[in-house]
């Protein structure tokens, strides 16, 4: 029951004023809201922005310029990046050799475990599900000593040199394989949880059709559930890749002291000195080099990354 739009009585006048006042209020509130949001953007980006600026400054320029401003009037250099890349390029390759297989393996194993424990019911499966999920919350400190003992006894290099041929199976690769196995095992709980949530919410039309065609549980997984899992695989792979790439602790414990030639970027960054004490410009460049792949993944797949971390709940 709305009144005609242009009735010229005084009440309407005040009403319009009131509406205008509300709009003004809302505008004011909106402006304040955006101001707060932008201040928060500054809070989150300031360390990164200042770090990036610093990475392009000579030590001299670093000492005399404002941290978050570019080096006006000379002092611009690529040298910190060159030093960081030179010291970390081997580690970048190691991290890729490590993170890609560990990510794919843990995602695959998490997916099949979640399928088996979501779609086929039996009496005590909840207990098993709980064991899988509890694995997410284990503080790694509780397994470090056994892990270091395990890899002190089990010589992967000797074990695998039979299969692989001695010249190829160098200690370098054996160390990386140890890390891959470890990361895969500890990645399974979280990938299991992510896939389980997804499979529980999956709908059914195609599966119903396959069922009518007489497909087995195995072929249903292979032909229907696996292709349907693509979006969840994207989420898990992104999340898991970030986790493995960013790990320091397992590498510290499993690799020979100092990481050796198999050190991943986290270890390389930690021991990056750049020659001079407190050469923050090289340190910052190194930090960006180490963060490059995860930043790239994050910028390209930010949405999926957010889904992944939220799915962790």
């Amino acid at each position: 029951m709305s009144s005609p739009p242009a009735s010229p009585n005084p009440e309407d006048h005040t009403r319009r004023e009131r509406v205008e006042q509300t709009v003004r209020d809302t505008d004011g509130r909106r402006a304040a809201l955006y101001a707060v949001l932008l201040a928060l953007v500054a809070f989150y980006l300031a360390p990164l922005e200042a770090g990036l600026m610093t990475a392009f400054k000579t030590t001299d320029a670093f000492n005399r310029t404002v941290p978050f401003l570019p080096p006006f009037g000379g002092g611009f250099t690529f040298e910190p990046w060159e030093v960081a890349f030179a010291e970390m390029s081997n580690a970048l390759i190691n991290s890729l050799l490590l993170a890609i297989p560990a990510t794919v393996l843990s995602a695959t194993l998490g997916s099949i475990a979640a399928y088996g424990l979501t779609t086929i019911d039996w009496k005590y499966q909840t207990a098993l599900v709980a064991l899988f999920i509890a694995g997410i919350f284990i503080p790694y400190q509780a397994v470090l000593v056994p892990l270091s003992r395990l890899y002190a006894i089990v010589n992967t290099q000797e074990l695998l040199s039979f299969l692989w041929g001695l010249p190829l199976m160098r200690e370098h690769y054996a160390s990386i394989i140890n890390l891959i196995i470890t990361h895969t095992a500890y990645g399974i709980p979280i990938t299991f949880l992510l896939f389980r949530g997804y499979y529980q919410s999956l709908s059914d039309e195609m599966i119903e059709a396959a069922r009518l065609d007489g497909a087995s549980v195995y072929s249903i997984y292979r032909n229907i559930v696996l292709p349907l899992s693509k979006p969840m695989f994207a989420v898990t792979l992104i999340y898991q890749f970030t986790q493995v790439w960013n790990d320091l602790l397992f590498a510290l414990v499993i690799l020979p002291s100092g990481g050796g030639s198999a050190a991943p970027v986290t270890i390389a960054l930690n021991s990056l000195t750049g020659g001079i004490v407190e050469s923050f410009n090289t340190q910052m460049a190194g930090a960006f080099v180490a963060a490059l792949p995860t930043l790239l993944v994050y910028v390209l797949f930010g949405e999926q990354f957010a889904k992944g971390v939220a799915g962790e709940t």
Partner: protein
Amino acid sequence: MQRLKDVLRRIPPGNREEANPGRTDGDERGEGSGASPELRTDGGEQADGPRGSSELRSDGGATVTGDSAEPAETETRTGGSFLSSDFVKSMPFWLPPFLLMGFFVYGAIGWNLVISLTDFEGLLLPEYKISAFDLEMYRRAFSDPSFWTAAQNTLVLLVAFTTICLVFGLLLAILVDQEIRFENTFRIIYLLPMSLSFVVTAKFWAWMYNPEIGMINVTLRQLGLDFLALQWISNPDTKLAAVIFALIWQFSGYAMVVYLAGLRAIPTAHYEAAKVDGASTLKMYWRVILPQLRASTMSAAVVLMVFALKAFDFLYVMFGNNPGPAADILATLMFREAFGSNNWAYGSAIAIVLFGMALAVVAPYLYSEYRRGEL
């Protein structure tokens, strides 16, 4: 809409545990052999081949028990009813991942527990003399002042970091939930630090906090606020707070994402109802919205605590092997003892205490998830 689970439940016409939960395997076998003849008749009537008949049977009668003993079925079901039970059928899927994870997670924790009961110091393997097993290492921990300092710092870190992250994350989520423009951009920026490793963030903050040339103090001095330029990470009074602040920078976006999902799940009608009732915005969030975010709070809190327990990497990069009493946490103490001084057994005992702390947080959480039917 049927769920995948309900559909697939009927695919292998195997035993229905839930149809008769009290059964044992022996009963199944007995029932199976008894039931198979009538089932075969059933199948014959359909004259559809074994595949077709089995589906129709499972469609029509999920209550039929023991049909797994049907001999004309697929190869996987020829071994009798236990071998064709759902338990066995699901095994190829979960067993290999479970063995791998179980060995590394639960096996390793068990091994760690055993080592913590020895006095193992630096050989390749401890000698597991059963008679020598005792709580010596735990006694040593409880009488060690640096253990209590580390335990206290761990607790402060856990509580302060988690609480502040939750409150800050909730505020962020509410701000982002105001139908703002460029919401995605804001959200992505707030979550960005979480994609970085502890090592990277520790490098950034080590520089931010540097008392002489660090960004914070340089900026403060340029603003003429010299008295605020403190020795952030070398002063014991501000050390732990500085660490917690940096961790909040890294992980508050995570709390925001969880709360945002929780807020989006609340029907708009609830906001409107609160407004109609004349509640102020503050009251609406406090009385109406917050109680509905209980599940989000719980799960975010648990995960944030796990992050806090993993803060080792951050401290290790920032302070090396020994952060000093002001910021030493159980994780760093454990690492120093085990890998710095080869006190493997002592390190293992500290690790078990840490594991107990995690268990105290996670077990109630998992139990409540179980009660809510989420597991």
